[in-house]
C-alpha cells in the first residue's frame, strides 16, 4: 500500500552553531509510512557512525518488511504485530552497532538514541530509546508523546526536580538507554490511533533543549500549512537561540485516513459501510 498520497513528510538535519559535524541521522519513507531519527554519541566521529548505521539498517529492513505489510504486520491469528517487527529489527540494529563498537577500537563506546514511527492502518507505532522525542499536534493540542530515558526525567518522575527546575539542571544530555552500548536494549513501544490533520514531530534534543515546547507548538500551529517552512523555522529557532547541539527534525502530516485492506481498520471500515 503506497502511503505517499496520505502522509506528507519533511526532514531537516543541521550541525548547529557550535559543533563541527553532525552526529544526527534521519530517514523518511512516506510511501511505506515510516520515519526514523537517531542522535549518535561517543568518540571522534563514532557518534555519526552509530546513528548512521541504525537509521540505514532499520530503513532497509523496514523497506523490505513493509512492501508487503500484511505478511509481516499481521500474525497468523490476524492480530497486528507492528510491535513485534520493531522489536526484532531494533534488536538486530542494536547488535550490529554493539558488534562494531566491540570489534573496532575507534568505535568503542559509541551509541545512539532512536525515535521512530510506523504508520499503518490508521495507527502509529512509536518506538524510542533515549532522549530523542516524538510530539503530536492535534488541533490546538501540542503534546510530547514519548518520555525521555534520561537522568533528568527520572529525577522529575521521582519528585526530586520539577519540570521548571529541570531546565536549570547541569545534568542535561545524560541518557539512561541507548542503542549499541550493551548486547541488548529495550525499546519503549506504544501504539496510538491517528486522525486526519495530525502533525507529528520527531526531533533530537538539539531542538527541545534550545526551544521551549510552547514555542515549538506555536510554530507548528502557525506554519502548519507549509511543513517545509515549519521544519526550516524550527531549525533556525534552535540556531538563533545558540544552536549548541546538532538539531534534526522530521515533520509528518496525516492527510486522510489510511485503513489497511486486510487490517483491523479496513475490516472495520467495510463492516461500517455494510451497515450504512
Amino acid at each position, binding site marked *: 500500500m503506497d502511503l505517499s498520497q496520505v502522509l506528507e513528510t519533511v526532514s531537516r538535519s543541521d550541525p548547529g552553531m557550535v559543533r563541527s559535524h553532525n552526529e544526527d541521522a534521519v530517514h523518511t519513507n512516506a510511501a511505506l509510512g515510516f520515519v526514523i531519527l537517531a*542522535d549518535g554519541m*561517543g568518540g571522534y566521529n563514532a557518534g555519526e557512525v552509530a546513528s548512521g548505521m541504525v537509521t540505514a539498517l532499520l530503513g532497509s529492513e523496514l523497506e523490505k518488511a513493509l512492501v508487503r505489510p500484511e505478511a509481516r504486520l499481521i500474525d497468523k491469528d490476524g492480530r497486528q504485530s507492528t510491535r513485534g517487527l520493531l522489536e526484532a529489527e531494533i534488536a538486530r540494529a542494536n547488535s550490529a552497532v554493539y558488534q562494531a563498537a566491540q570489534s573496532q577500537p575507534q568505535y568503542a563506546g559509541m551509541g545512539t538514541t532512536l525515535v521512530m514511527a510506523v504508520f499503518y492502518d490508521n495507527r502509529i507505532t512509536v518506538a524510542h530509546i533515549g532522549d530523542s522525542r516524538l510530539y503530536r499536534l492535534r488541533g490546538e493540542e501540542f503534546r510530547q508523546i514519548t518520555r525521555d530515558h534520561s*537522568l533528568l526525567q527520572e529525577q522529575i518522575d521521582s519528585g526530586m526536580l520539577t519540570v521548571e527546575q529541570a531546565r*536549570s539542571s547541569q545534568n542535561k*544530555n545524560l541518557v539512561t538507554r541507548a542503542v549499541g552500548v550493551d548486547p541488548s536494549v529495550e525499546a519503549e513501544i506504544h501504539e496510538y490511533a491517528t486522525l486526519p490533520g495530525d502533525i507529528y514531530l520527531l526531533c533530537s534534543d538539539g531542538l527541545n533543549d534550545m526551544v521551549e515546547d510552547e514555542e515549538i507548538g*506555536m510554530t507548528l500551529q502557525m506554519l502548519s*500549512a507549509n511543513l517545509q517552512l515549519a521544519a526550516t*523555522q524550527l531549525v533556525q529557532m534552535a540556531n538563533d537561540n545558540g544552536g*549548541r547541539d546538532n538539531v534534526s527534525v522530521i515533520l509528518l502530516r496525516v492527510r486522510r485516513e489510511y485503513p489497511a485492506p486486510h487490517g483491523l481498520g479496513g475490516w472495520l471500515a467495510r463492516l461500517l459501510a455494510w451497515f450504512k
Partner: protein
Amino acid sequence: MAKLTLSMEGMLLKEIPLVKERTTIGRKPHNDIQIDNLAISGEHAVIVTILNDAFLEDLDSTNGTNVNGQPVKKHFLQNGDVIELGKYRLRYLSEAQPHAAQADFEKTMIIRPDMLPKHAGAADAKAMMGETQAGMPAAHALSADQPPAREPAPEPPAAPLRGAIQILTGANAGKEMELTKTLSTLGKPGVQVAVITRRPHGYFITHVEGASFPAINGKVLDAQAHPLHDHDIIELSGTKMEFFLKD
C-alpha cells in the same frame, strides 16, 4: 567541580570543593564542614551532589537553614545561592567550565546505573528528597532574583529590536500591530498567509500558503525568507501595510 565558600561577617574563612556525594554540615566534628557555633545543630544540613547538580537539605536543625533569605527544607542549589546558617554564609558556586569543555560535556552521553552515585537512582532519590516539596516553589521563585550564571547562550542584543506593522489600506486601515513574538502571521488561512519571523539580527517575511506571494515595495517575493527594512511596504491579498522599527 562545584564548591562552597564559607564566610562570616564578610570574612572569607575557607573554600570547600564538593567532592563527595554527601557533604554534611554541622557543629559536631564528624561533619565534612564543621562550624563550631552554638547556633548550628550537631547535624545541621547536608548537600547531596549528583554529577553536576547539588541539592541542599536541612536535617531538622533547631535554628533552620535559609537560602537567599528564605527558610528552606530542601533546595535545588543554583550558582550563586547563599546558604545562611546563623551568622555564617556558604556561597554555592557551580563549576564555571571553560567554553570548550562545556561544549564537549553537553554532548549526549549514556549513563549506566552503576556509574551513578546510588542516590541518583529514582527509587533512592525519592527516599532522599522525601515527599515534601512544599518549600521548593517559594525558594525557586526567589532564586529568580539571582539568575544562575549559566553558560551563556548567545543572547539577543541588549536592546531587542521592536518592529511593528501598520495597515495602510482596507477596512482596518490605521491599525497597528507590534511584532513582539518570534512569529506573527499575516493574512487569511487557506487564502494567503505570510509569516514575519523575529530573529536576533532583524525581521524576515516568508510566504506560507496561498497561490499568490506577498510583495515588498512592489516586488513579489519568492519562497525564500526576505529581510524587512524600516518603512518597507508589504502587500498581501490586496492590503498594503508598512513595516517600521520603533525606538
